[in-house]
């Protein structure tokens, strides 16, 4: 193990350009730490999309409301795994919870995470599903019935008063939930933005850029899942919903792009000590992932597609195809964004005199395979969740059948 890591780093020595501090050869935050902000971003984004329905009363988005909540839950459950697996001593992780260092942004992770999972997401989902769970528990049989009863926490009250309380609770939780979602992901941005030693990270805009890109990726992910799910279930797609949600996506991408452009222009204009090495970083190391993947494929082209889809009177199938292409490109772009922040920030020496290289492991614990497993895990979880918890309200499902 030691031998191999030594050999691996030894090979990297050949790929240095310029001068680096000798300890800097090792890229410490690997692909797993790219996965982490990508996943929490999806959580925050999906939740904020769900909040649009409850707080801003955007009725058109109702078909995606439950799916958004479940998407947020599925990704949130996976979010701590890449962090845990990345630790040098994962068996000591509990120390972050037991003896947190109050000046450390990272030490707050456990609390922010626990609050968001227990205080916001699970509560909102429970209140939203309580009535349906009671009904399902009444209909079902055997194990499924027991699961539904347990999930409803054995409540049985579906009187109008109880349902009114559910609605009130959901509203209250959403009101608290929006700033909590901002906290969850803004905090991840702060972890990077507060590292003064690293000029690529150190920016007051970092938490906000993280947040906006999170909203973009979350909305795009829910659109993707909604389209796939309806296709799998051979259900009709609600075009009003799809058109509305893609409009929100469009505005979110515009804001996200403006913020990132502002950050870029600001850096270029201030032209501090680090500007030379950062320029080299972009042209030599991040050309593909930043300029091509993130900006061109992940932003400009999807923006163009969305404009096209809105401006022209295409038929539904054409619009669906355009939207679908756009959301996939956007996912790719946001993943590239995370890559460029996390890996990009470690590819230049803090002496500002040289560049390093990141060579991803294939099979190792910080390798590509495990990252793909972690990225696939939320989809598996979600597949289970949508089986137990219907993504449409039971009353809504029944209503069209009658009419």
């Amino acid at each position, binding site marked *: *193990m*030691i031998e191999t*890591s*030594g050999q691996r*780093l*030894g090979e990297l*020595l*050949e790929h*240095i*350009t*310029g*001068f*680096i*501090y*000798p*300890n*800097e*050869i*090792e890229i*410490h*935050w690997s692909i797993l730490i790219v996965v982490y902000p990508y996943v929490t971003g999806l959580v925050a984004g999906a939740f904020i999309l769900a909040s649009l329905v409850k707080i801003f009363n955007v009725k058109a988005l109702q078909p995606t409301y439950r799916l958004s909540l479940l998407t947020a839950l599925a990704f949130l459950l996976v979010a701590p795994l890449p*962090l845990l697996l*990345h*630790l*040098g*001593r*994962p068996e*000591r*992780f509990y*120390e*972050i919870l037991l*003896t*947190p*260092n109050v*000046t*450390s*942004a*990272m*030490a707050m*992770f456990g609390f922010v995470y626990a609050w968001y999972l227990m205080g916001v997401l699970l509560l909102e989902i429970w209140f939203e599903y309580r009535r349906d769970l009671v009904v399902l528990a009444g209909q079902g049989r055997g194990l499924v019935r027991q699961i539904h009863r347990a999930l409803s926490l054995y409540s049985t009250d579906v009187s109008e008063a109880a349902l009114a309380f559910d609605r009130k609770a959901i509203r209250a939780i959403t009101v608290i939930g929006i700033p909590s979602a901002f906290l969850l992901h803004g905090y991840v941005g702060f*972890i990077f933005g507060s*590292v*003064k*030693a*690293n000029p690529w990270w150190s920016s007051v805009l970092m938490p906000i850029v993280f947040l906006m890109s999170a909203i973009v990726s979350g909305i795009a992910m829910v659109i993707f899942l909604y389209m796939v799910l309806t296709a799998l279930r051979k259900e009709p797609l609600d075009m009003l919903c799809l058109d509305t949600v893609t409009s929100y996506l469009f505005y979110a991408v515009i804001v996200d792009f403006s913020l990132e452009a502002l950050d870029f222009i600001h850096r270029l204009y201030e032209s501090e000590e680090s500007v030379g090495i950062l320029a080299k970083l972009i042209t030599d190391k991040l050309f593909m992932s930043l300029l091509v993947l993130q900006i061109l494929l992940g932003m400009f082209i999807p923006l163009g597609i969305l404009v096209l889809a809105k401006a022209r009177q295409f038929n539904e199938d054409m619009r669906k195809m355009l939207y679908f292409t756009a959301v996939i490109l956007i996912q790719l772009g946001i993943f590239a964004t995370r890559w460029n922040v996390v890996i990009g920030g*470690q590819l230049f*020496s*803090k*002496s*500002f*005199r*040289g560049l390093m290289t990141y060579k991803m492991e294939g099979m190792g614990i910080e390798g590509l395979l495990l990252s793909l497993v972690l990225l696939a895990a939320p989809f598996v979880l979600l597949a289970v969740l949508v089986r137990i918890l219907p993504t449409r309200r039971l009353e809504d499902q029944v209503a069209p059948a009658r009419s």
Partner: protein
Amino acid sequence: MNKRDFLKGMILFFPAGGLLEMAANAAAKETAATDAAGAQPAAKGAPAASAYNGDKHYYGMGIEIDKCIGCSRCVEACKAENDVPQEPFYFRTWIERYVITKDHGVIVESINVKGKAAKETPQEDRDVIRTFFVPKLCNHCIHPPCVQVCPVGATFSTKDGVVLVDSERCVGCRYCIQACPYGARYLHPKTRTADKCNFCYHRVVKGLLPACVEVCPTQARIFGDLKSKASRLTRFYRMNKIHVLKPALNTEPKVYYAGLDGEVR
């Protein structure tokens, strides 16, 4: 004073200095002996280090650029003393060589790393306007960013001004490595925890010098106590024009460089 008087003085001065040192050594041995003797009956509860009082010291290091000849004995001594892996990318201390050329070009190399990029790049002598070595190590900052970001408090500042890592507590998240502006930290491949220079704390509390200081043949490194007016470091600080690395980051390093070039980062 004429030449004769001066030489006479010299004849007396050096032996006298030697005698004084012998006396001092004898005294030191005596105290050490009494310490050890005192500690033995007290057994587990009060180890020998109990005689050491951290409140009374505040350590730092001085480095005189013009004295460093780039022999790397400090690097070797450090690796041997502190179980630092031998591979050329784990260092608690290392030496950088700067070559400044006529056209204001700067060539920097880590002389302890023999990679492709770090091979000797021969320079036309007449193109070189100045060249020097810079020993680097943990700066034991007064405001250490590594301590600020450590999620579990495994890295901490001691009362006597040393930044230490508790390898029993460190979870290996490597946030400290990201936060250090000086590249002074690495992840130890055996323990999987963060590691860096600790001023040879185990030696310092016994009244010894850090290994790198001990072996430096030109006394380019000076270790000392900023709280003591008589310490060599205090004198070094008084007698030289001092600069620290990356002062704009407000980390307030306690490794002080004399004769540091503005090109050094």
